Structures are given as structure tokens and as C-alpha cells.
């Protein structure tokens, strides 16, 4: 039985250790990839890795060998700059071969710095500029409802990204239409490119903002796979669901954690060695 199928049937506590190891493997591949390409966004990749791995490996109804089946669940990575985490997760889940990761950012590679749906199996819409993925995901959930389909839609948002007004347009539309099949995850790592989100432009009180927009709000530890799995498996009842996943930018590598400069810094060879040791422990 494929690992994905088995994980989908396990209780959260039993699936968690497997997901944790997969997420660290994703981080290790990502380190190699970014080091080789000399570009990437490791800080955000590592904060969102546990979220993406949990969704793709144990929640989404998707078939990596047939990634365009009409009734698949949809996932949109709105924070498209963390393409590194997405590509390595997709490769781990069988959407394409892991050796393809070696081409990341190389001339003519399918693996651009930001994801492209026409080139990468599993990518649903092209993202990169912030504030784009959420409205598209709302459209996906609306389509499912118009077609009376049970398929679910997930959108992964950065926290800094929420400073883009288009997100709040989409949040209003989703609650107006009562899109309970839609689940938005906020990767709340507290940092954006320039500084802490609360220093650049305050997001708090974030949970009550979402609640006041008509969403069911859940807060979880974004690195606790059992918590993530449990909450992702439960759709909303009458309202769309926002999961605020409290995360650490650069999670898993001590010298990167919660450090603003690791937004898009490329590690040295020594730093890669040191990071790999921590991620293999």
C-alpha cells in the first residue's frame, strides 16, 4: 500500500512520527536544492514544511500519478516564494522524481523560483506576487459547490502576506458564500522579509480579525503533526475554516530559527553540513 494511502488511514498520533521524518527529509532536500541553486527562501520553507507535508501526505484526496483528476482536492500555496518546500514535498509524495529537484532554478527548468501550474504536476495556480492564491482558492471552492462536489480546497497563506488587501476581499467572499469546504492555513511565523510582522504592519489580533470576517478560527502548533492532521481532517460545518498555525521561521535549524535574515539567505557549505546534522538528529 502506498505510504500516502496508509497515512490517510492512521490516527493523528500514529501518523505524526512518520510525517515528522518526512518533513525533515523535505527540509534536507530543500537545503541541498537552495545551496546548489544559490537562491531560495529557506526560512519560510522550513516554517511551512510541516503544514505542506501533512496536507499532501495524509489529508488531500489527490493522485500523484493523475494530478488533474476532476474530483481531486485542491491546494494552493499562496506564499509562492516558498516553492522550495512545495517542490520537495511534491517530489516526496510522488508527483515527480526527487532527482528533478536538482534542476531547481537552472536554465529552462520546470522548477522556477515560483511555482507554475503548466510545468509542475500538482501545482494548481501560479503564485509569487502575494495575495493571489486566496481569491483563486475561493473560486475553486465555489466551483465545487456549484457542481455539488464534496471535494475540499486548502489554501496556505503567509502571515506577512495578509497585509495584501486582496486576501480580505477573498475572506469576505468565502464567508458570504458560506464555503465550509474551504480551509485556509496561516503560516504564522511572525516574520516577513524586512522585520517582524508586528513592527512592519500589525496583524494582531489576528484570530479575532478572521472571526469577525465570518470564519471559524482554530489555532494550532504548526509543527505538531498530530494537531495539524486532526484539524485539517475536520472540515467546517457552515463556515470556512481558518487555521492559524503558529510556526517558527527556519524551524529545525537552530541558527536559522526566528532570524529575519534567513528569509532568503543562502547557506555556506559549512552551514549546510551543520543544518543537515540538526535535521538528521
Amino acid at each position, binding site marked *: 500500500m502506498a505510504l500516502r494511502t496508509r497515512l490517510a488511514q492512521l490516527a493523528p498520533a500514529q501518523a505524526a512520527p512518520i510525517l515528522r521524518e518526512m518533513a525533515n527529509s523535505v527540509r534536507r532536500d530543500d537545503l541541498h536544492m537552495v545551496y546548489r541553486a544559490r537562491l531560495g527562501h529557506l526560512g519560510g520553507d522550513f516554517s511551512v514544511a510541516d503544514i505542506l507535508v501533512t496536507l499532501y501526505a495524509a489529508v488531500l484526496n489527490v493522485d500523484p500519478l493523475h494530478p488533474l483528476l476532476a474530483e481531486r482536492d485542491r491546494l494552493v500555496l499562496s506564499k509562492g516564494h516558498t516553492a522550495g518546500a512545495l517542490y520537495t514535498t511534491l517530489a516526496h509524495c510522488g508527483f515527480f522524481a526527487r532527482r528533478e529537484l536538482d534542476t531547481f532554478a537552472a536554465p529552462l527548468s520546470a522548477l522556477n523560483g515560483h511555482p507554475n501550474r503548466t510545468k509542475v504536476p500538482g501545482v494548481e495556480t501560479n503564485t509569487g506576487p502575494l495575495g493571489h492564491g486566496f481569491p483563486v482558492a475561493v473560486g475553486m471552492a465555489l466551483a465545487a459547490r456549484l457542481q455539488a462536489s464534496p471535494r475540499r480546497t486548502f489554501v496556505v497563506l503567509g502571515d506577512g502576506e495578509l497585509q495584501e488587501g486582496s486576501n480580505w476581499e477573498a475572506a469576505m*467572499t468565502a464567508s458570504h458564500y458560506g464555503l465550509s469546504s474551504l480551509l485556509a492555513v496561516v503560516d504564522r511565523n511572525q516574520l516577513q522579509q524586512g522585520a517582524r510582522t508586528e513592527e512592519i504592519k500589525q496583524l494582531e489580533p489576528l484570530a479575532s480579525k478572521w472571526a469577525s470576517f465570518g470564519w471559524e478560527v482554530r489555532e494550532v502548533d504548526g509543527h505538531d503533526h498530530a494537531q495539524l492532521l486532526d484539524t485539517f481532517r475536520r472540515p467546517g460545518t457552515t463556515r470556512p475554516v481558518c487555521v492559524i498555525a503558529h510556526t517558527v521561521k527556519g524551524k529545525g535549524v537552530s541558527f536559522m530559527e526566528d532570524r529575519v535574515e534567513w528569509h532568503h539567505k543562502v547557506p555556506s557549505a559549512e552551514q549546510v553540513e551543520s543544518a543537515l546534522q540538526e535535521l538528521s538528529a
Partner: protein
Amino acid sequence: MSQATQASALHDCRRAFADTLIALAREDERIVAVCNDSVGSSNLTMFKAEFPDRMINVGIAEQDLVGVAAGLANGGLIPFVSAAAPFLTARALEQIKVDVAYSQARVVLCGQSPGVAYGELGPTHHSIEDLSWLRAVAGLPVVVPADPAQTVQAVRWAAANLGPSYVRIPRFPVPDVTPPGSPFLPGQAIQLTDGNDITIIAAGTMVSRALQAAELLRHEDIQARVLNIAFVEPLDTDAILTAAAQTSGIVTAEEATTTGGLGAAVATLTAQHLPTHLRILGVPRSFAPTGSTAFLLEHFGLTAEHIAAAARDIMAHAAR
């Protein structure tokens, strides 16, 4: 020669758009409409009455409007986004670029009341830049029908097209210009009059005025070839280069800025392949003064008389 040279009734293209969309929706349940608050300005009142569940209204939120449409397309539906052209194309330009064109989402973007159709409401409500900036977006056909018959063809073509498109729905009333049985294909202009002296290339509301200019010139024994360019992208390069080769020069006319639209496209093409005398008529790079649509078209020289004058000017230069 042309029907337009007769005093025919004037029509705007909004009714043709609305009727065709409804007819298509009856044939294909994948077709949905998406609008931003005003069902009326979006020409969707009748659509909503017949298909209330297939009318998505996101409110006053154009970025959301286009993003949601891309998501609907991802789900296998064929969304027609209908909104006032200035807000659709300016406010949501990045969504058009990324979510629709770059993602190759099968979304039909319908720009209502384009050009200076909103007249006295002023430059905030004019959409004279849409042809320029959408021409610059890869993978996005830019379609400008000239009359109700061609609007029907444009809407049907866009619905059947497997990728994204932008269709500019004229509002200023025009006479019928499209001969029955005319084809409607990307990269194919419609030649409305024959003539080897001068060429007039026009789009949308300017096509009937181009025909009237040709009539004026005929009285002076100048035979003008009139090309109706419904596809500003992709352009009919063969027809334009043939015209450059066979006539003394080209006058272009569009209800849009001259910076980057149809005239600029013709200039780029001919300058590189077959340089010719060229006069580009449109809105110069300026914000319009207060005035009705008819006033503004006159103010900017977008009349049969001005088109004819530009043609004479080329003839005079070419004769030297």
C-alpha cells in the same frame, strides 16, 4: 459597397453580449458569470434572472473578481468576468497577468463600457489604456468587436477558446459594419472595402467611422482599403504587410490611447518588416477633458473627417 455607407440604425453591443451569453449558458452548463457589484453595468441583468445560481457576485472587489474566476476555471467551469473595463483591467491587472494569463486559466474577461464610453464621468472611468497593457501580457488574445454581429461572434469564439481572452464590449452606438458570413478567427482581419490608394485600419467603434472616411475619400477618387481588426492580439500580420506593400500608407484609428495600442502594434510590425507612411489616431497620452463620448471622440480627432484628412496627408507625402 458597405452597409455602413447607408444610413443604417445605430446599435451598441451590450445587448448582443447579454443575449449571446445567455444563449451559450443554455447550451453549456459550465458557463457562469462573475461580476463586481453592479449586475446592470456588467450587462448581466437578464443572465441573473435566468441563471441566478450561476451568477457569482463578489462585490466591489476587482482583484477578488479575477482571482475567483481563475479558481472557477480550475474547477472546470467557464467563467465570463463582466465588469466596467477601467476597473477590470486597471485594478486587477496583476491578477489578469498571473492568475489568468500566466496560469493559462480559461477565463473570459469582458471589459464593458471601454474607451471613453463613460464620457462626462471622466478619466477615472475611461478605459483607454486597456489595449496597451493587455497587449503586453503574453498568452492573452485581445478582442475588439466592431458591431453587434461581431460581438456575437467574439463571445462565441471566447467561450469555445480553450485559454484566456479579453473581449472589449463597445458601448458607443455604431452602425452595422460586418457583412453576413464574415469569418471570425484569431489573427484574421476583415477587409471591408477594396482599394489600393490608402489603407485605414480600425477597431471597435472606429470601424464604422473608417468606412465613412473611405466614402468621403471615394468622392475625391481616392480608393481606401478598410481593415477591421477585431483581434488586436494576435494581429493579422499578413493583411497589414500586404496593405503596406500595395497602398501608399496606413491610417489607424482606435478608441484608446495611442501609446501601445492598435496603432502602435501596426507601427511595430511595419517598421520592422515594411516601413510605410503611418498616421496613428486615438487618444494622445493625456487625460480627457470633461465631455460626452461624442464630444470626446470629436475632440480627439476620432471622426470620419479626421481619418480622411490623415489619409490625404499621407497621399500628399507619398506623392512627393
